[in-house]
């Protein structure tokens, strides 16, 4: 059998998501962003929502999310994505509206916008990439930087006496009455990627059903910021990040009713 005979549509087991275009991504090797982009593109396509979606990109490494996924986008000011999403969803209730934010954007400068959009129960989804560091600006301390973790602005390690404590936004979000689904996932292995995709789909569906706001945190790597190889970054994440950022569902209003 020739190679050409095997490459046929009926033998297809996997393909690039239709909504993920061929633009070269600016992300570093080993970065989690690309995987999460892929999952979002797949879910929107599978839900048939390309012409009914509005994505809000952040300031941070995800700033150019709009270049890679073929839907309509708006590029927010730093931290303000949930405010834009609030207006988009209120004005276009039949649209799938989501934000894509990093830990600095969501848990530092945009804490107010995030908590209030979630607490108002806006029927949106917030995709939250938590890699415990500022990637875009070159590896400074994030609100989610772990105690003892070294960054450019805490070169001797995060010391709570000087820098305060890491902030756990998903635990806060789960306490809010407006949230429907709050989950923490990762994308460092095939099973984790499958679970993360399921979580994104569930969040998007709940937002379209008007159940309330949804937060999907992805505990992510930043090999450049952490100064580790992609493989070692994954290992470091498993060894250190998961101890503080426990993976799993924190709240699901549909599960509670079952």
């Amino acid at each position: 059998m020739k190679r050409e005979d095997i490459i046929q549509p009926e033998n297809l087991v996997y393909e690039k998501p239709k909504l993920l275009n061929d633009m070269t991504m600016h992300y570093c090797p080993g970065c989690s962003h690309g995987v999460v982009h892929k999952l979002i593109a797949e879910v929107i396509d599978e839900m048939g929502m390309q012409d009914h979606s509005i994505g809000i990109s952040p300031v941070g490494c995800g700033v150019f999310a709009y270049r890679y996924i073929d839907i309509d986008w708006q590029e927010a000011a730093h931290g303000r994505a949930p405010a834009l999403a609030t207006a988009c969803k209120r004005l276009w209730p039949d649209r799938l509206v989501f934000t894509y934010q990093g830990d600095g954007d969501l848990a530092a400068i945009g804490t107010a916008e995030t908590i209030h959009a979630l607490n108002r129960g806006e029927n949106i989804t917030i995709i939250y990439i938590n890699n415990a560091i500022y990637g875009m600006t070159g590896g400074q301390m994030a609100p989610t930087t772990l105690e003892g973790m070294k960054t450019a602005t805490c070169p001797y390690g995060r010391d709570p006496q000087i820098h305060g404590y890491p902030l756990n936004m998903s635990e806060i979000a789960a306490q809010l009455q407006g949230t429907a689904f709050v989950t923490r996932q990762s994308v460092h292995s095939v099973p984790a990627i499958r679970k993360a995709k399921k979580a994104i789909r569930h969040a998007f569906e709940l937002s379209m059903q008007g159940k309330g706001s949804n937060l999907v945190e992805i505990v992510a790597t930043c090999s450049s910021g952490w100064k580790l190889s992609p493989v070692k970054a994954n290992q470091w994440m498993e060894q250190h990040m998961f101890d503080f950022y426990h993976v799993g569902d924190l709240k699901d209003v549909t599960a509670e009713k079952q």
Partner: protein
Amino acid sequence: MNEENEILLLKGNEAIARAAIRCGCDGYFGYPITPQSEVLETLAELKPWETTGMVVVQAESEVASINMLYGGGGTGKRVMTSSASPGIALMQEGISYMAGAEVPGLIVNVQRGGPGLGTIQPSQSDYNQATRGGGNGDYNVIVLAPASVQEMADFVDLAFTLAFRWRTPVMMLSDGVIGQMMEKVVLPPFKPRRTEEEIAKECPWASNGHGIKERGPQVITSLELQPDIMEVRNIALQKKYKEIAEKEVRYETRHMEDADYAIVAFGSAARISQKAIEIAREKGRNAGLFRPITLWPFPEKEIAELSKQVKGILVVEINAGQMVFDVRLAAEGRVPVEQYGRLGGIVPSPDEIVDALMKLP
């Protein structure tokens, strides 16, 4: 609500809210601050979401309000917010993003005195901020200055028209006097909100998913990291501002035909100056009023002409002297240009203005 030309006795702030509902506004996003809270209160009481479908959201801050405006405007909807001076200062980030991404929207500033927390009493001390852009980067917003409750109502639809014509944020620069005083208002005729198809036709640039399969993805952004491309975008913005400056200047004159002296004033200062002119004329000083309605673009050509007609100009503004510099630039030293203003929330009386006018050489 459907009656044409409904006439009511209203505060300026209430007039804005009612006009918004009647002129097809899709959404209001705001945060309480004195002296403009009646805008949000009136909307909450009238519940337009049950009639026209207009969305009303009380945001968690002015920062959130303006970014809701940015998001909503980016989808092609007619959206507005209102605030007062300290809140408008907080909004400058979002206004700059809207200008950079060319997103239409209406921002109402019912000014109060500053700096800082200042006072809740009226002022016009945000003139510089409003007319120079206010946020980071090279940009301008169209600034409309209402001088009556009637104009508060009329300028809502005008602001939306200009905002969408030029894809720019428009600011209505009012003040605590006009916002709080009550006058008889003829409300604008009722105009329905646009349908999705109408929005798609008017705003082919909008980011809302409509028609993406035919047109391809659309992005609302002010970001461009390539300096050569960013310069081109900036030049295009400047070209647009030049065109706005040529086409959208608005002003009003009173008693200027035979005037030897002119008062240049906007908003509530212009209202008070009307009375001052009557008194001055009784005292034998033939004065007229020139009232810029657009503060940006500024009626510089018209004021240049005026400076050839009169012996002196008095700029009356409720601040320490801001518009006076624009008037002096336009007058190019042809005649003396003096300024009279009060500060800290004090509104000048007609007699004070007359005294200042009589002192002109």
